[in-house]
C-alpha cells in the first residue's frame, strides 16, 4: 500500500503499520470514536428557528436556494428549543426579549452552541446606546462564534457556521458528555432589566444614589 490518497492524509488519518488483507482493503475504516462522533455531529447541526431582526432575513436568504444551508446539514430549523443544537441569535437583543432568550437557551439540550450573528447580537451594533437594547447577547449567555456585519452577508454566516463546525470537530467526546447542565437565571423586568445575580450590587448602587440625592437635598435645602 504505497499509494496514499488525499483521504488518507486527512488530518492525520494514517495508514496503520501492519498488513491489511486484500479482501478487507477499502471496506474497513479505522477511526477514533471521537472523530466519528464529531463527524456526525458537525454535519447535522440543527439551528433553532427563531429570528430576531434584520439579520434573520439574511439567515433565511442563506437557507434559500442560492446559498443553500442544506449543504452543511443545517437546513433543519427546529421551532422547539428541545430539538435544536445551535441558537443563531440573529438580530438585536432587546431587554424585553432577553429573559425569553435565556429561557430558550436553558431549554436547549446539551451539547448546545450559540452563534451571535451580526453587530447587534455581538455587541449592540448600531443600536447600542438605546435604552431598551442589550449590548451583546454575551452579557447573559455564552457565545461560541461571533459573526461581524450589519447584516453579515450569507457568505459570512456560512463562514461563521463552518467555524462552529471546526470547533465541534475539536471537542472530545468525554468533555461533551461530562458537560454540566448550567442553568442561567432568567433576567427580570424591573424598572430596568435585572440579572438576579446582580441583586446585591443593584441594591448597593441604588442606596448610594439615594444617599447622594438626600445629601444634595440637605445642602441646598
Amino acid at each position, binding site marked *: 500500500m504505497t499509494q496514499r490518497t488525499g483521504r488518507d492524509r486527512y488530518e492525520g488519518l494514517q495508514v496503520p503499520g501492519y498488513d491489511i488483507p486484500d479482501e478487507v482493503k477499502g471496506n474497513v475504516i479505522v477511526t477514533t470514536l471521537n472523530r466519528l462522533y464529531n463527524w456526525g455531529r458537525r454535519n447535522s447541526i440543527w439551528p433553532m*428557528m*427563531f*429570528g*430576531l*431582526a*434584520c439579520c*434573520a*432575513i*439574511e439567515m*433565511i*436568504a442563506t*437557507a*434559500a*436556494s*442560492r446559498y443553500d444551508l442544506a449543504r452543511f446539514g443545517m437546513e433543519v430549523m427546529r*421551532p422547539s428549543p428541545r430539538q435544536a443544537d445551535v441558537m443563531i441569535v440573529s*438580530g*438585536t437583543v*432587546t*431587554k*424585553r*426579549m432577553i429573559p*425569553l432568550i435565556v429561557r*430558550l437557551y436553558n431549554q436547549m439540550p446539551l451539547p448546545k452552541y450559540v452563534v451571535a450573528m451580526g453587530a447587534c447580537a455581538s455587541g*449592540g451594533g*448600531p*443600536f*447600542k*446606546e*438605546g*435604552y*431598551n*437594547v*442589550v*449590548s451583546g447577547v454575551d*452579557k447573559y449567555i455564552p457565545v461560541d462564534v461571533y459573526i461581524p456585519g*450589519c*447584516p453579515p*452577508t450569507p457568505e459570512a454566516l456560512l463562514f461563521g457556521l463552518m467555524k462552529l463546525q471546526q470547533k465541534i470537530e475539536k471537542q472530545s467526546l468525554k468533555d461533551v458528555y461530562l458537560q454540566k447542565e448550567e442553568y442561567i437565571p432568567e433576567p*427580570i*423586568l*424591573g*424598572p*430596568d*432589566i*435585572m440579572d438576579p445575580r*446582580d*441583586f446585591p*450590587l*443593584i*441594591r448597593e*448602587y*441604588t*442606596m448610594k*444614589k*439615594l444617599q*447622594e*440625592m438626600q445629601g444634595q437635598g440637605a445642602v441646598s435645602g
Partner: protein
Amino acid sequence: MTTLVTVPDIETRFAGVITPDTRKGYQGYIVEAEHVRAFAKALRDDYGYDYLASLTGVDYLPEGKMEVVYHVYKSTGGPGLVFKVQVPRENPVVPSIVDIYPGANFQEREAWDLLGIRFEGHPNLRRILLWEGFWGHPLRKDWREPYFEEEGKPFSSRWPHGKHFHHEDKNPFGKNVDYPPGFDPYTWEPDTADEILYQAVLQRSEIRDDLRTERVVVNLGPQHPSTHGVFRMIVTLDGETIIGLEPVMGYLHRNHEKIGERNTWIMNIPYTDRLDYITAMANNFGYVLAVEQLMGVKPPERAEYIRVIMAELTRIVNHLWAIGFLLNDLGAFFTPALYAIEERELILDVFEATTGSRMMNNYFRFGGVARDIPEDAWDKLVQLVTDRLPRKVDELDRYLTNSELIQSRTIGVGVLTAEEAIAYSTSGPVLRASGVPYDIRRADPYSIYDRFDFDVAVRYHGDVYDRYLIRIDEMRQSLRILQQAVKQIEQEAPRGAPILAGKPQYQVRVPPGESYGRVEAPKGELGFYVVSTGKPNPWRYHVRAPSFVNLTALEAMCRGHKIADVVTILGSIDIVLGEVDR
C-alpha cells in the same frame, strides 16, 4: 410632496377654540384640549377628513409644553390637515379620540408609553412598546438612557478628538442598565403583566351565555415560527373560535426615535434602513422627503428617476417576500418562498452593485442619491424589469392563484370592510384590498409619480385572498412604472446627468419648522414627522410605521375565525417587526 391645507370655513365655526399655528415653519391649527373631540368629529363627519394618518407627541421642554400632533387626510385623496393640542408638561392630559378615529388606538398608547401623555377615555391605556414598570418615559427630553453621553452627536469625545471608549467600562454593572435611587430589587414584585393581560383579554371578549363553553387563552409568540419575528398574540378562544385577540409588541423596540433625536440629520438615513428591513430604499425615500421639505431642496431629474426605480424594485422585493411567506403560513412550507427569494436575490444583486450592500442600502441623500447605477448593473436591471420579472410574476400567479388549497384557506377569511379599513387607519395593500383605492402615489403625489401611467390596484372583498391578489397586481403595476422609467431616464436624464443637488455634505442645515413626509411604502403609508430647531440634530423624529398601524385592525379581522386562521391573517397583513416596534 405632501401639502397641508387650512379650511377657512372651519376657522369661523370653531372661532376661539382653534388658532392657526403661527410659529415659523409650522402649519395647521392649535386646538384647545377640551374641544379636540368635537373638532375631530366635525373634521371627520362634516369636512370629509376621515383618515387619521398619524398621531404623535412632541416634548417642547424649553416651553414647558407637551404637544400632540394629528395628521388627517381624506380617503378620497388630496392634501391633508394637521392640528395640535398643547398641554402643560407636568400633567399632560388629552382627551382620547379612539372612538372617533379607532386607528388612534395604538398610536395613543405609544405616545403614553414613550412620552407620558395621558389620553383620557382611552379604553386600554397601557404601555405598548416597553413593559409595565419601566422607569420613566424615554422620549421626554430630560430622560437619559444608561449609556447617555451627550445631548447630540457628534459626541465631542469622538470627533474631532477620536477618543474611543467602551460604555461598559463606565457603567457600574458593565451593561446597559440603570436603576432609580432607593430601588430595592429584593422587594420588587416580578411583573404580573402577563396575568393582568390574560385577565384583560378574558374580560374584553364578550361573554356568550347560551353555550357555556370554557374559554381558553392561548399565547402565540414571541418565539413562534409564524409570527414573522418576535411578535406575540394573546388569543382568547371559545372552542376553536377566536373571540378576543391582543397583540403584544415591543420585543424589538430598538429606540429608533430616541437615537434619531441624538443623531445628526444625515446619520438617520442608515437607521431608516433598519426600520422595515425588507424595504430599505422605501424608508430612505420617506425620510429624505420629509427633510427635503424643510430644507427646500429639489433633487435633479436623474436622481428622481433613480429613486422611483429603486422604490419600485423594493416594492417587488417586498411583495415577493410577502407572498412567499404567506404561503409558508398556509403550510406550503418554504417551496413558494424559495421561488420568491430566487427573484429577490437578482434584484438585490442590482442593489449591491449600486449601493454596496444587499439589504441596508443607505442610498438616498438629501437632494439626490449617493451614487449612480453602474453600467453593468443597469443592463441587468433593464433585463430584469423588461423580461425576467414579468415572466416570473406570471409564473407565480399561474402556480398559486387558482390553487384550490389556497382558495379554500383564504377566501372569506379575515374580512375587513372598507369602512373599517378606513376607520382603523390601515394603509397600503390592506386598505386597497378592502376596496378603497387610496394610493399616496396618486392621492397625494410626491416625487415624479405623476409622470407615469399606472393603475391603482384595488380589490373589493377585503379577505386574505384579495390581499394576496392585490400584491400580484401591484407587482405588475410596479413593473409598468419601471418599464416606463428605464425608457424615460435615458431620454430625460441620461448617464452623466447630476444625481445630487449641490455638493455632498456631512452637516446639512435644516431650517426650523416641522414637516411630515409620507410615501406609499410597500406595506402602506410610511410617514416621518420631523421637527427642527435649526440645530444639527432633529428635535423630534417620529416614524409613522404602516405595519404598526395596520395591526390595529388585526383583532377585528380575526374575531369569529378559527385559531388556525390567525397565522394566515397575520401573514396577509405583512408586518415586519423592525417597523412595528421601531
